[in-house]
């Protein structure tokens, strides 16, 4: 394992130290391990909190700021945060109008956020959880823990954050996050595995000419291992899976071509060219797009494509001003 780190046990703490130093607009509490907007809590504004394992940066801490999250709670690498930590983030975000939890659908995240929500209710903070599950690679929810939360998390945090900033009610902010989730599908492909620092070894092994189709964001292998193919063919697999699950024909979409952490932007643009061509060929209008590393899996090489079928209101919420370390426009 070759990593740019100090003490392997302090990776998450050192990351938070760096974020605190680099982004004075954020309040980083190293004891509670939470990242909070400097002006939170804002009285009367619905609070927006998310969190999950570390290793997905800039998700979630990098999306704390104006127009997006009020607080984030990063767990250990690929490990959900603990209830006390989620409660601390919830309390920090609470301006008296309730708090929405954006939770990615993983057993650990769901359980820990559920426990934290109960603790928050004891402190008279109303919490509405929204579970994100946009990954089409997991097929049959009767026989699995259900679809995973991936790229739609970013979309939901952006839309809900914009609505909360505009004074939306607790129920409306939660509803728009749910709407975004229902209108988004994602599919990921890995070219390499990644190494959790504490484990020291890659989570799986891939040959030079092999790829994993249908990966999640925790270094877990996908549904199927196949030969490496040219980018347009890989993009076709991903978009076909998405299109089969939720027809895209005739719709206006927001597309995220998301790097998993170890793929150069150059290759992401190669992929995006194929995405744009594929969508154009299937009668889909790309109204908005985002290319880059936003929901990562440490140093994994690969790409995850997320498509959101927009409505005029969702486009407005996407375009609304945002000022966070990870996303910044219009302000």
């Amino acid at each position: 394992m070759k990593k740019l780190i100090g003490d392997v046990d302090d990776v998450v703490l050192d990351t938070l130290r760096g974020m605190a130093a680099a982004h004075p607009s954020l309040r980083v509490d190293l004891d509670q391990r939470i990242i909070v907007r400097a002006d939170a809590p804002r009285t009367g504004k619905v609070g927006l909190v998310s969190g999950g394992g570390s290793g997905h940066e800039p998700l979630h801490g990098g999306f704390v700021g104006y127009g997006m999250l009020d607080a984030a709670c990063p767990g250990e690498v690929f490990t959900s945060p603990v209830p006390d930590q989620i409660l601390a983030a919830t309390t920090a975000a609470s301006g008296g109008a309730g708090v929405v939890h954006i939770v990615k659908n993983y057993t650990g995240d769901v359980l820990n956020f559920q426990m934290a929500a109960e603790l928050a209710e004891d402190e008279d903070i109303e919490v509405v959880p929204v579970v994100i599950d946009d990954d089409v690679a997991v097929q049959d929810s009767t026989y699995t823990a259900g679809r995973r939360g991936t790229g739609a998390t970013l979309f939901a945090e952006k839309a809900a954050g914009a609505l909360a900033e505009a004074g939306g009610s607790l129920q409306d902010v939660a509803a728009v996050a749910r709407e975004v989730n229902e209108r988004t599908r994602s599919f990921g492909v890995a070219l390499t595995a990644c190494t959790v620092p504490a484990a020291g070894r890659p989570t799986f092994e891939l040959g030079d000419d092999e790829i994993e189709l249908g990966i999640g964001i925790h270094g877990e292998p996908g549904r199927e291992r196949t030969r490496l193919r040219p980018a347009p063919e890989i993009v076709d697999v991903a978009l076909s899976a998405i299109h089969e699950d939720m027809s895209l024909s005739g719709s206006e979409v927001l597309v995220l071509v998301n790097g998993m952490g170890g793929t150069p932007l150059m290759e992401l643009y190669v992929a995006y060219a194929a995405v744009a061509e594929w969508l154009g060929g299937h009668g889909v209008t790309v109204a908005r797009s985002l290319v880059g590393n936003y929901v990562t899996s440490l140093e994994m090489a690969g790409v995850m494509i997320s498509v959101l079928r927009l409505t005029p209101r969702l486009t407005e919420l996407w375009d609304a001003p945002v000022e966070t370390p990870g996303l910044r426009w219009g302000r």
Partner: protein
Amino acid sequence: MDTRRWIERFAELVAADADRLTRLDAAIGDGDHGANLNRGLKAAVEALGPDLPPGKVLMTAGRALVSKTGGASGPLYGGALRRAGKALGDAADVDAAALAAALRAALDAVQELGKAVEGDKTMVDALLPAVAAYETAAGDGPATAARAALNAAETGAEATVPLQARKGRASYLGPRSVGHLDPGAASTVLLFRALADAAAEE
């Protein structure tokens, strides 16, 4: 039954086996089970103040596991121990019958939280037969009952190998989860090995 010794022994066994648990988890999950449980149990042992009654020991350890472990195993193991501790109440002494009831409460907590049933390839596949075996053998005393529970947990864990996972992160792999021992079932075996060791020491 010395529940403090049980938890301490569980922490020792997990520390010694953390790498193996993590390797099992890397095969079908995300490779952090050993490290997480080890961190949580260290915190649990540290949280145990002096002179706690047996039930309080389990509740304190459970709370620490929930607070420090993260992942699914924190709420699941922590919730299980807390519920078991609650079942023991303030009693100063715990016999096999009381512990059998506590173990049943722990199993209920895990199934309520995780919604897993037998055959889903989870910790329930080791926990459920172990609890049943303990109940059946409780009349023969804590040491015999704990040994029977350990045997049942081992058999149950081994039986997860050919199963396809239907809960937790391994379920994302579909048929590719077949042929691997479930890491949660493996750590549950350690929970019962610790119980058997602690009971044998008495």
